[in-house]
């Protein structure tokens, strides 16, 4: 045996990576003079202890599911899309235009069109870097970073000069019409007599996000194009030899990725703020990177990782509120998670793999000896 068992690869290594990342995070909390165990307790009660906490946790998780899936699809094709942030910003613009300028009779219709609008704008924003990568070989990492900055400037311009209602000082669009407002979990669950916090922003988009996980799973692992994307990501030369067009796969993977990132905006823009604001994405596009890495680019893994980050985000907010630990603690944890699950993966993997192989060899030797005897 020269490999470790699958369960170790899928579960043990990520678990060890995460443990290390969280251990260091706890050490950081201790280093700034706070009690790490107290902090964890506060985070758990703040994020999971009430339907209000759950409402926020799931709301954040919804964002991260979309952006995590976006990064994962690109990763499966061996493309690193750092542009989720910019694509989500543009997606917000798409959602806002749909909500502001098309009169909808009911939210059920509105959400379908808003999803299309958000996905279209997000995909368009990913299309240029994708085209440049596919046709001209410009590195998609650099171009998507640049497009994040360009998106921020563009949105700023559009909000200040075009969408801002007359007389308003706020760089934000007008409120969306009432018929586009999405029902929250409170609205959805109260007819069944289930009490859910009224002020928590989690809404029907969460269900859309869960469906998106399933669709992406089917697409990646049960469809022809998904197979092509994955084989392209494993080995470009082999897939070209098999007749897969690199230009086509690069474009499709990036457009899907941008579309998913853009679709995130049905949650934050349509579901929560109900108008387009300047900093609505709040770094969710970047958290998608951590979520995708942690979830091993698998939709189910992304779902779990997004829940964890939703918890961290809401818990981190509680820490800022009750202890004097700034919200930026979440950024530190996020950085450590990306570092240990992404970049320093081999630090854990190499010794664990060696240990497994050694154990297997020893077992073999023992078997051989028993046979002799």
């Amino acid at each position, binding site marked *: 045996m020269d490999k470790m068992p699958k369960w170790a690869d899928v579960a043990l290594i990520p678990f060890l990576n995460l443990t290390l990342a969280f251990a260091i995070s706890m050490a950081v909390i201790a280093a700034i003079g706070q009690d790490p165990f107290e902090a964890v307790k506060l985070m758990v009660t703040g994020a999971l202890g009430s339907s209000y906490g759950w409402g926020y946790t799931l709301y954040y998780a919804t964002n991260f599911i979309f952006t995590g899936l976006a990064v994962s699809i690109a990763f499966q094709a061996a493309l690193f899309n750092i542009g989720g942030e910019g694509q989500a910003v543009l997606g917000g613009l798409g959602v806002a235009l749909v909500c502001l300028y098309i009169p909808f009779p009911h939210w059920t219709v509105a959400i379908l069109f808003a999803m299309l609008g958000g996905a279209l704008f997000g995909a368009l924003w990913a299309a240029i870097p994708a085209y440049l990568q596919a046709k001209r070989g410009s590195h998609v990492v650099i171009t998507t970073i640049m497009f994040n900055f360009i998106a921020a400037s563009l949105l700023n311009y559009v909000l200040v*000069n075009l969408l801002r209602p007359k007389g308003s000082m706020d760089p934000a669009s007008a409120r969306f019409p009432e018929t586009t407002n999405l029902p929250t979990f409170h609205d959805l669950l109260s007819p069944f007599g289930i009490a859910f916090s009224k002020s928590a922003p989690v809404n029907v988009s969460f269900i859309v996000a869960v469906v998106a996980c399933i669709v992406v799973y089917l697409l990646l692992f049960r469809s022809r194009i998904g197979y092509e994307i994955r084989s392209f990501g494993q080995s470009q030369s082999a897939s070209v030899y098999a007749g897969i067009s690199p230009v086509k796969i690069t474009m499709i993977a990036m457009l899907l990725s941008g579309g998913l990132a853009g679709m995130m905006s049905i949650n934050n823009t349509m579901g929560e703020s109900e108008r387009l604001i300047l900093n609505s994405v709040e770094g969710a596009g970047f958290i998608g990177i951590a979520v995708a890495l942690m979830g091993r680019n698998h939709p189910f893994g992304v779902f779990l990782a997004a829940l964890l980050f939703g918890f961290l985000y809401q818990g981190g907010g509680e820490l800022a509120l009750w202890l004097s630990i700034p919200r930026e603690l979440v950024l530190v944890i996020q950085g450590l998670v990306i570092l240990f699950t992404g970049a320093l993966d081999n630090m854990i993997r190499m010794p664990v793999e060696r240990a497994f192989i050694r154990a297997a060899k020893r077992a073999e030797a023992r078997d051989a000896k028993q046979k002799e005897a």
Partner: protein
Amino acid sequence: MDFLTIIQILDSALRMATPLLLACLAGLISERSGIFDIGLEGKILVSAFFSAAVASLTGSVWLGLLAGVTVSVVFSLVHGMASITFRGNQLISGVALNFLASGLTVLVGETWFGLGGRTPTLEGAERFNPITLPFADALRDVPILGPIYSTLLSGHTLLVYVALLLVPTVWYVLYRTRFGLRMRAVGENPAAVDTAGISVIRLRYTAMVIAGVLCGLAGIYLATGLSSGFGKEMSAGRGFIALAALIFAKWKPVPALGATLLFGLLQAIAIRYPKIDLGFITLPSQFMEALPYILTVIILAGFIGKAIPPKAGGQPYVKER
């Protein structure tokens, strides 16, 4: 626009270009040795914070400089550990370090100073102060050359001159020394370097340390020269603009000076003229902000010459057994 205004804008351009230049040279050293570095942004940020914080606590900008350089080198070495020793994805490592920097600076800043992530304002010996070049005041009234010398060239802080001197230094090291030759080779064909009996790993780690020092200087200049103190997220994308300049300059030191001066000029113009009226169209300030990024994409697209990165960049070196 009169002559003096032009001089003032150029003067401001030089200030804005300095952190870009230092970070760009850091990226150049790193990428020429085969390690992609999108963590420049984070390194600028941590060194800016720790230099300002230590300068404020000790009252000495030199101790601040030491702290800033140290922490930037530590970040660089973590990046090296991930990319060289553990053969991880260099882009992912860079992204991680950027987040870590954003978080740690505010976390530590809030704990030490309680000013919402800022450091106290630096004064006197806590920051680098402008240096007046000899005769600058006497020559001020000489037409044309006077303002160029006394306004544009004189009156900057030490690190501006250091950054300018580093351009020929890096050029010399890269193209005229054995170390530079080896470093360029290790970024193109590490296997050949290895065959010649030179340690790829040691060369790349050395490059990481140099890049850490240079990038540290960029952050230190930002917090203790250009401004007087650290503010949350004060690097404001400069690491990425430096990366853009590096591509613009095709990974060469002298063009790097040109590219960073150009981007510095764009920033200086955007500060002075938020809106630019070209007669037929008014360019909004947001366009000026986005211009360096738009230019980079155009360059990357290969419409103005082709930017070809070092061949072995981004790939961990695995010695054959």
